[in-house]
């Protein structure tokens, strides 16, 4: 195995080129676990952290461009980002321990392509877009389209994610992400739910995106759940419809972390709770 730490995107692309056994290293919190358990035996590891811009959080088009090597801890410490996208930042902040927060990245969480990745439902609800670089230059792809199934992504050989764009946070808008885990920390999500919504002047939902994690082979955007909220104030009836839509959309499996029935039910529970938090935030209140 070789280790390379290129200083430019071009050099990174070159290092990855023609190396089917190459792996990209950003935070490394998934990669090193796989290395150690011999799940992967790469020929080369390309550390992208020394590339200019990879550690930056930059304002762009009213939103935020987050470099692929920005850690969860760095996001949590960025007040303006937290003010705009608290749900995304909190979701990233749920990945692993304080120690893992010192390293884990949004891009890495996305590329790991786990259906239970915490930050992905939040990014999907936010409408985030990944900027992918590779031998053919750069392209943008909606975050929801990056995972293609457990462990699989839409990235072509030689490509890697350079940054993630969180779009402009509209007026009267808020987001939230909740997950269910058996303990209070350190677990993989049994169910995750992201909600991003905007309210009109009468506190009716004018736009909404609802996403679910860990209840299917990849994170899903639940259109029916968003429809259940639109043009309604978040009263019990609306929340009931939201919960029902999420439970219905969920296609979970029984495994060591939870049962089908449990996941379906909790998908609805979390959606209700996340929607209430997102709406509270949209009203400019603390939640």
């Amino acid at each position: 195995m070789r280790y390379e730490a290129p200083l430019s995107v071009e050099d990174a692309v070159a290092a990855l080129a023609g190396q089917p056994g190459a792996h990209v290293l950003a935070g490394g919190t998934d990669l090193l676990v796989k290395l150690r358990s011999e799940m992967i035996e790469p020929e080369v590891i390309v550390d992208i952290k020394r590339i200019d811009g990879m550690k930056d959080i930059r304002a762009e088009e009213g939103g935020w461009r987050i470099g692929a090597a920005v850690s969860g801890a760095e996001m949590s410490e960025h007040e303006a980002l937290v003010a705009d996208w608290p749900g995304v930042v909190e979701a990233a902040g749920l990945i692993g321990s304080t120690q893992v927060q010192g390293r884990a990245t949004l891009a890495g969480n996305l590329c790991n392509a786990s259906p239970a990745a915490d930050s992905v439902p939040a990014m999907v609800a936010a409408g985030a877009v990944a900027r992918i670089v590779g031998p053919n230059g750069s392209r943008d792809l909606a975050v929801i389209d990056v995972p293609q199934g457990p462990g699989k992504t839409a990235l072509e050989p030689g490509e890697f994610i350079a940054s993630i764009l969180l779009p402009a946070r509209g007026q009267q808008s808020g987001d939230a992400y909740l997950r269910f885990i058996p303990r209070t920390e350190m677990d993989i999500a049994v169910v995750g739910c992201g909600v991003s919504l905007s309210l009109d002047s009468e506190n009716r939902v004018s736009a909404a995106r609802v996403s679910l994690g860990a209840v299917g082979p990849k994170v899903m955007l639940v259109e029916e759940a968003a429809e259940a909220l639109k043009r309604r104030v978040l009263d019990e009836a609306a929340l009931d419809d939201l919960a029902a839509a999420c439970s219905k959309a969920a296609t979970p499996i029984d495994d060591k972390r939870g049962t089908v029935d449990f996941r379906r039910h909790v998908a609805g529970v979390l959606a209700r709770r996340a929607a209430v938090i997102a709406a509270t935030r949209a009203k400019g209140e603390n939640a």
Partner: protein
Amino acid sequence: MALDDTKKTRDFKVVGTRPDRPDGIDKVTGRARFGADMVLPGMLTGRILRSPHAHARIKRIDTSKAEALSGVKAVVTRADFGEVPADVADVMDNCMAGDKALYDGHAVAAVAASSPAVARKALKLIEVEYEVLPHVTDVDAATRPDAPVLHEGRQQETVPKGMSANVIARSEFGHGDIETGLKQADRVVARTYRTAATHQGYIEPHACLATMGPDGKADLWVCTQGHYMVRNTCAAILGMEQGQLRVTASEIGGGFGGKTVVFLEPVALMLAKKSGRPVKMVMSRSEVLRATGPTSSTSIDVRIGMTKEGRITAGFAELRYQGGAYPGSPVDMGAMSGFAPYDLENVKTVGWDVVTNRPKAAAYRAPGAPMAAFAIESAIDEAARGFGLDPLEVRLMNGADEGTKASYGPTYPAIGLKATLEAAKTHPHWSAPLGENQGRGVACGFWFNFGGDTCVSLNITPDGTVTVSEGNPDIGGSRASMTMMAAEELGIPYDQVRTIIADTGSLGQNEVTDGSRVTFAVGLATIKAAQAAKAEMCRRAAMVWGIDEDAVEWADGAARPAGPNAGKFPPMTLKEIAAIASNTGGPIAGHHEVNAEGAGVSFATHMVDVELDPDTGSTKILRYTVFQDAGKAVHPSYVEGQFQGGAVQGIGWALNEEYIYGEDGILQNAGFLDYRIPVASDLPMIDTVILEIPNPGHPYGVRGVGETSIVPPLAAIANAVSAAAGVRMTQLPMSPPRVLAALQAQADG
């Protein structure tokens, strides 16, 4: 000289205080050397190849390619060990599979290589041809006549004919007549309870470093709860004389019973023998979970008869414990301990020891007892609540006391059960209000506590300080306790004594650090060794003063004339006597060797408040209080630490921890990610109340405290969750899906 062992209410000067532990600075600075921290020149890395199958016949192992790899210095399979004595045959087989691999993770071969990378590569070059066999991992399934059989010919005569060969033994305890008792009851609770296998979860993986010369002399550095056990077992397996194998115990990063047996050690020695080089072996976390001692999973039927006043008229339990791939689950201890807190006329327990395709169960803190207590204390709680009775009062009404004939046979001397219940009743926790979705539970627990073979050597240095050598690895602060007891007995300050854990060449045989025995048994031997040294010092003073040695007594760190008739001499301090030792007969020491008896049983009552999230089935521990009899708390902080640690292990067992096997018999959660031990944010503070009902079998009244604290929590939490949920929970862990399903079933009527 006059020594009074029977004086129970003495004024302690050191015992009962809270000095800094002697190993503290090493442990907070990173200097303390644990199992994996030792290195030797020329050291190789040893690694183990493990079975990927739950049950398979090993048809062929070809190690030639691994042996040919550059950097590989030795490859070992079972064939290298040959025949071993019958009493270590199962241990041998567990360390290195013979004809069959009996569980996922069972060792089948090992290598020693010049680097970890080479060792990893070598493992991949070992070819093992398996014939995969049907497997069974569930305790009840393993007892069925058509279950896949692990071992033929191991079933004992106590087992009725027609049962699966996996049922190894049946045991029975109790007295009176159950049917008669049940007829006297106003209510009978009859239920089946199940508990999942849990792991001790020590944070330090098993590790050792072995060397062996061509002359057969060997040294072993190892993290273990008992290096004398390691010596004896390894010597038997390798056909060595015990005296030729010196074992040194490293600092131990947690054991909880799981480090009372060998796994790597005989293999490391064999690799060292074959390679002629030091070999270090360290398990990964996954290896620890797959191949070292979890406790049993269990299935337990209970019948409790109770009058409407709360008197228990009959108690019956039938306990089925699977102990993994070899005989010897802790079912007997479960069957003996479950009803031990109660004074019952009619009580009977039947235990079944069952083997399955899982790793061999090792001891886990009060082995066997927490599951039995979970079942029995749940049934008592249900019966009491059914009559609207106070569960503490019911336990007091039925509680065992001095003179009670215990369910497992003996008659109790002074015991502390009722003291813990009375303390619980008057504690503010018991009367604190509860909110919505909250519930409170209580439960009692018992542990036998052990004594056993123990040696202590206490030496007076020329400058009048004291060293104590003992043979039990310190897993809970015992060096501090020994130091305190030596200082107490000698009447000198704590900081003038240093206690070390001696290697196997330095003392006689010492039983493993288990059974909560160390503060009791090693403490007893330390006190006796100090008394021997005091007697010698009195003799030296008598010699100097020219009086009879019986006319000298020891008090406050000095020899003194015993009375006015003995003559008028100023006290001669320990330092003064030490300074002239060479001229009065030579160095001064005391030692004591004993098979310690009189350990003194211990009881606890736990009280816990929980809150359920009715939408997710999630349980939050709101408040927890431990009431336990310590006999005499030598170092109260460390006693509290034992209470708190045991309670929290119990919380994990009750709520989230479990071994999860797939249909394929493969362990699915062999890591700390999905084997979920409690994290700091899961918990409240754990309050403790230390009761002190002196143990008549110890000079200072000490009882073991380490194990009892894990016995009540499973039941206490189940009782609290059941109260909050309004539905009886009978299966552990009470994970959110299970609690939510129970709540929904309740709501659906």
